[in-house]
């Protein structure tokens, strides 16, 4: 199956308005104005900067010290791209230090991986053209968190676009221009990873508790409607609620890696998509599946107006499948609502999810307080309530 890249390569120049007809004249006149009071303005800036730095540098570092973790993304030339709390501009010098550390050790022909002290653990990941760094109070799985972060960026741009943009626009390119509006996705990908018990087990997917028979009906309905539509390239269907999956159907030959699944879950959990009577169509790269191409995701919250927070996602490799998948959604929704007993159970399970119950694995052991079950082949996890 071939995966197409949305729109092919970046459209050079499309993002730079004003460089057209009137550009040269304009920039010339702007320059002239600037020259007159350039010096005094510079002094002003310097003064302001100094004042700001004095005021914030200490505060800022103090604040950062309190945080359980801090994540940085920068370009190889040290240009800030993302920090999970606060403002990249304020932390320029910290970004520079990270860049220099990584670069210095690379010049020695080695790789900087981690720096540890008693209560601070710093992990680095250099994936050209980007550098990732996490500073954390706890040392657990920092390497995997950085991998997740890298894949989150790839899911927005794909590896080919990421590499091309630096090739075309130079090492000094400000990647934030291309990532505009995605800070909250990057942020939620890290925070949900850290906040979830699934981070204890390698890249897994958490499953929302439901009656097995209801889940089976849900899966059969989704598989039936998706299969019947005969849309070649529509490969996956997922029902998600509360960042957990209720059901997942796929074409036989294709498997979605749990880390890719978590990227999808993170995307659809964004508040901006939770609109009633609307659906979203967006490209998304799933790096474990193919880091150079894009899927197109059909995303809808069919019952948002009834406050049922379930999200249906249908993924295709074809960009013109929106209409087809919209019909698939209608068919799935119709069939699910048509089975009133199912729909009642499903709504209850999704609106107010229970944890799995210990009695579900038998009452034989008095001393069992809680369990986590990981299915090794599907990487799905069930977590019980405590006794």
């Amino acid at each position, binding site marked *: 199956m071939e995966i197409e890249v949305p729109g092919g390569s*970046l459209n050079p120049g499309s993002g730079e*308005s004003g460089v057209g007809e009137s550009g040269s004249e304009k920039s010339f006149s702007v320059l002239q104005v600037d020259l007159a009071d350039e010096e005094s303005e510079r002094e002003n800036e310097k003064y302001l900067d100094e004042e700001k730095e004095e005021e914030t540098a200490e505060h800022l570092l103090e604040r950062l010290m309190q945080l359980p973790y801090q994540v940085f993304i920068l370009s190889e030339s040290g240009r800030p791209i993302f920090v999970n709390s606060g403002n990249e501009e304020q932390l320029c010098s910290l970004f520079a230090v990270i860049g220099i550390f990584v670069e210095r050790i690379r010049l020695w022909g080695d790789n900087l991986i981690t720096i540890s002290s008693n209560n601070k653990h710093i992990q680095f990941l250099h994936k050209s053209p980007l550098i990732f760094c996490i500073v954390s109070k706890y040392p657990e799985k920092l390497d995997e968190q950085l991998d997740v972060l890298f894949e989150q960026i790839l899911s927005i741009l794909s590896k080919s676009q990421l590499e091309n943009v630096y090739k075309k626009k130079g090492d000094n390119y400000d990647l934030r221009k291309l990532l505009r509006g995605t800070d909250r996705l990057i942020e939620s990908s890290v925070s949900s990873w850290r906040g979830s018990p699934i981070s204890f087990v390698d890249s897994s997917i958490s499953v929302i508790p439901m009656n097995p028979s209801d889940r089976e009906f849900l899966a059969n309905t989704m598989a*039936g409607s998706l*299969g*019947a*539509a005969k849309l070649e390239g529509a490969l996956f269907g997922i029902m998600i609620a509360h960042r957990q999956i209720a059901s997942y*159907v*796929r074409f036989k030959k294709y498997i979605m890696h749990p880390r890719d699944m978590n990227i999808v879950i993170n995307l659809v959990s964004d508040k901006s998509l939770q609109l009633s009577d609307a659906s979203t*169509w967006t490209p998304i790269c799933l790096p474990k599946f193919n880091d150079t191409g894009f899927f197109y995701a059909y995303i809808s919250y069919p019952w948002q107006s009834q406050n049922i927070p379930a999200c249906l996602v249908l993924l295709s490799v074809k960009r013109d499948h929106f*209409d087809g998948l919209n019909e698939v959604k209608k068919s799935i929704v119709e069939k699910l609502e048509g089975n009133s007993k199912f729909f009642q159970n499903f709504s209850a399970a999704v609106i107010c999810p229970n944890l799995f119950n210990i009695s579900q694995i038998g009452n034989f052991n008095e001393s069992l307080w809680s369990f986590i079950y990981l299915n090794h082949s599907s990487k799905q996890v069930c977590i019980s309530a405590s006794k």
Partner: protein
Amino acid sequence: MVLLGESAVGKSSLVLRFVKGQFHEYQESTIGAAFLTQTVCLEEATVKFEIWDTAGQERYHSLAPMYYRGSQAAIVVYDITNQESFQKAKNWVKELQRQASPNIVIALAGNKADMANKRVVEYEEANAYAEENALLFMETSAKTSMNVNDVFMAIAKKLPVGPTQGQDSQGTVDMNQPQQQSKGSCCK
């Protein structure tokens, strides 16, 4: 119909105001494109709007043809307090004139009209540009709802009445084509 324009000019806010009558002071940036519908009764006909609210960010630019190719109408939005967004709007108009369906109805909307004290794009300038290019033009405010319904209605009135659905069926906006459904699946 499709809404195009620089990011943060208020495309989603206009659509939300029109479709749901809502306005959020802090509207999250759109991911990809959102598809919404709204049915409106005019005196002589019922119009069903099928609206693509696209994301304005640079990385989505190359996807735009997917949304405007099947559209009968486009609203190109700029922010009256942002000169660059007006330039971007002109680029969108050019692109539509070159690449969209030749009969497409284009409206230019200068949004955030409630922020007149920060205005940098003059009404006359935009109006003159719209006249030159035969565009509908209005200044709008999703916040106060000024001219929001009007701009959608003005477009509806310019659309051909009756069975235009046929020509549109290869496009991306016709939702009335049932899929051929057949039994059997390899999906699970």
